């Protein structure tokens, strides 16, 4: 394999922001595109961001070779209700955050330890019973992963994650 084909076949993770009309079926179009063409979705978030102009923003984290990721972006741009597609990973620096709700059921020392770790991660306990906590942790995907991993031996019973939201650094809009 030549160096060039190696670069072409290297798989990378990309965070893509998509501005779409907030209308029925638009999410199905995007998801259908990924399933129909066999692209990966690692996470996908969507919410309305501009009520006046009826726009929603979708953040997709996907993996693929450079050629596949280019295809994904071009295929997204073909969809009629899609206005803008931006590959945050290659278009300059960006910030990305994810929120997770993590339920830990434990008593005694483990309970104390879970609170200590939560403190290190700046996670907040937002629900508490005598035998459980629900922590809210916010951060980059890796940080959320690390927190959840540390909770495992302490009585992790349930996790709910939002998936990644991301935005470019600096003054410019999407």
């Amino acid at each position, binding site marked *: 394999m030549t160096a060039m084909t190696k670069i*072409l076949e290297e798989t990378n993770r990309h965070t893509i922001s998509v501005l779409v*009309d907030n209308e*029925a*079926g638009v999410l*199905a*179009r995007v998801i*259908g595109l990924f399933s*129909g063409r066999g692209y990966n979705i690692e996470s996908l978030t969507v919410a309305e961001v501009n009520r006046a102009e009826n726009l929603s923003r979708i953040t997709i984290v996907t993996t693929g070779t450079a*050629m596949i990721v*280019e*295809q994904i972006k*071009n*295929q997204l*741009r*073909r*969809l*009629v209700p899609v*206005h803008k597609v931006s590959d945050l990973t290659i278009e300059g620096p960006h910030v990305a955050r994810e929120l997770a709700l993590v339920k830990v059921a434990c008593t005694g020392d483990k309970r104390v330890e879970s609170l200590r770790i939560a403190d290190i991660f700046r996670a907040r306990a937002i629900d508490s019973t005598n035998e459980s906590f629900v922590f809210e942790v916010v951060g980059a995907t890796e940080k959320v992963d690390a927190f959840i991993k540390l909770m495992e031996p302490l009585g992790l019973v349930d996790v709910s994650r939002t998936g990644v939201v991301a935005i470019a650094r600096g003054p410019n809009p999407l």
Partner: protein
Amino acid sequence: MAQHDTLNGAEILLKALVDQGVEVIFGYPGGAVLPIYDELFKQNRLKHILVRHEQAAVHAAEGYARSTGKVGCVLVTSGPGATNTITGLTDALMDSIPLVCITGQVPTSLIGNDAFQEADITGITRPCTKHNYLVKDVADLSRIVHEAFHVARSGRPGPVVVDLPKDVVQSKGEYVPPQRVKSKYKPPVKGDIKAIEKAVEMIAHAKRPIFYVGGGLINSGAAACQLLTQFVRMTGYPCTQTLMGLGAFPASDPLSLGMLGMHGTYEANLAMHGCDLMINIGARFDDRVTGRLNAFAPNSRKIHIDIDPSSVNKNVAVDLAVIGDAAHILEDMIKVWKAKQYRVDDKALKAWWAQIDQWRAVNCLHYENSNKIIKPQYAIQRLYELTKHRNPYICTEVGQHQMWAAQHFKFEQPNHWMTSGGLGTMGYGLPAAMGVQTAHPEALVVNIAGESSIQMNIQEMATLCQHKLPVKIFILNNQYMGMVRQWQELIHGGRYSESHMEHHPDFVKLADAYGAVGLRATKPGEVDDLIKEMIAVDRPVIADLRTDASENCFPMIMPGMAHNEMVLGPEDKGMEKPGSEEDGMVLV
């Protein structure tokens, strides 16, 4: 507001269709669209062709669109009416044919209730349309219909579905004319001039160039095809066409190498393999064209001109892409060529043509003719010779006959060749021919068919007879699904699993039963008379030509093989290449 609320949804729909330039609707009525049919009954601006199956309505609209450059229009009812359009819509999507398909829907209050004849048609058609709409409020109706036509015809064309619940069609609302509708959908038309200049420079400096042109030129219009012809002739470079691009460049021009790909000519495929610069205009590096990708045109640089950015770098990485409409880009390319006074490298070009002429001398479309049995290639050659003075429109079904037609019928103009390229839909040809004949009532329209394909939409014979559409159906009847049989012979050890139809209708009697004319030829000597009689009759004709059942379509790039590994015919040594069988079996 109240004074505007004078029209019901059905009236608004028909008004919008008229304002969008629709002349004919291919359709089939049913419960959910009864109010629309009621309005159709009261007017005479829009003609309605009553098909016998909704799939045929879509193919007819495709034939209409492909032969006129306009948007085809379909009207069907909810549920089964709408689901029957799926094959047609997918076909139109694959071949970039502009259509608007209006489907009825149950009233909004019943949507989601599993009502009678309810189907989630926007859900079902999402992957097989360019875009689709569910109209929930009559206030949105005219805007959506206008936008549907705009989306269907702009950028890379394609089918658009508008799903209309029955209550929306019956409510009163205001009509909004197209001039007052602003769509946010604006695909690029002009190409980037820097990229165009770079492309022209690459073209001028090429030593072994080839133009590889496809259906995108036909979609761009007759002007684009003219500009292409002008540009190719200015350079003196060879030009090969895809299946969908036949007619974009005149077949009789010595610069034309004919079709390329799996059943393309030897000279076209070897020139693609050996070129140093490939200029792709409006083609999409389909697997039927490229053969094995890692051996595709190995020493070439590639320019790709396309209106759809997602076609670029999809299958084949290119060196330069120009995104935009072919007509605009070609116009700019010619301007740049003239302004910079480019000259081609005469010496290199002469050597390149000398090489191409050697490949041409192989005469790859040659076949052993017979005076006992009708060879399918012979039948098509005679059809071409005896009809070319009438500039006919040719449709095909899918299979061997389609490839022979593509090889042996010569197209000088765009829009005269209608075939199912991307999806490969058996049953496409007869309804497509119906649509072509509707658009061109005086023209000679021939559907070259196989006896298997034709039976997939044979019910449309009744439509032809009812609407007095004198389509000529030219069946190359070899008693087999010929292409399936050919692959079984070449790749599956001659095990002819289910490719032989032991029973066929008597096509002459069948024509008679429908009220059409049936003709038959069983010997080569009868072919000319049959064709002459067929084109003299002013009614639909089924011509049943009994052809050689064992004939295979050559030349052929076996699945998984490269352009320079073409098999020329049954005696070619390439046939015995070890490994080709197993590798080929996995591929389609």
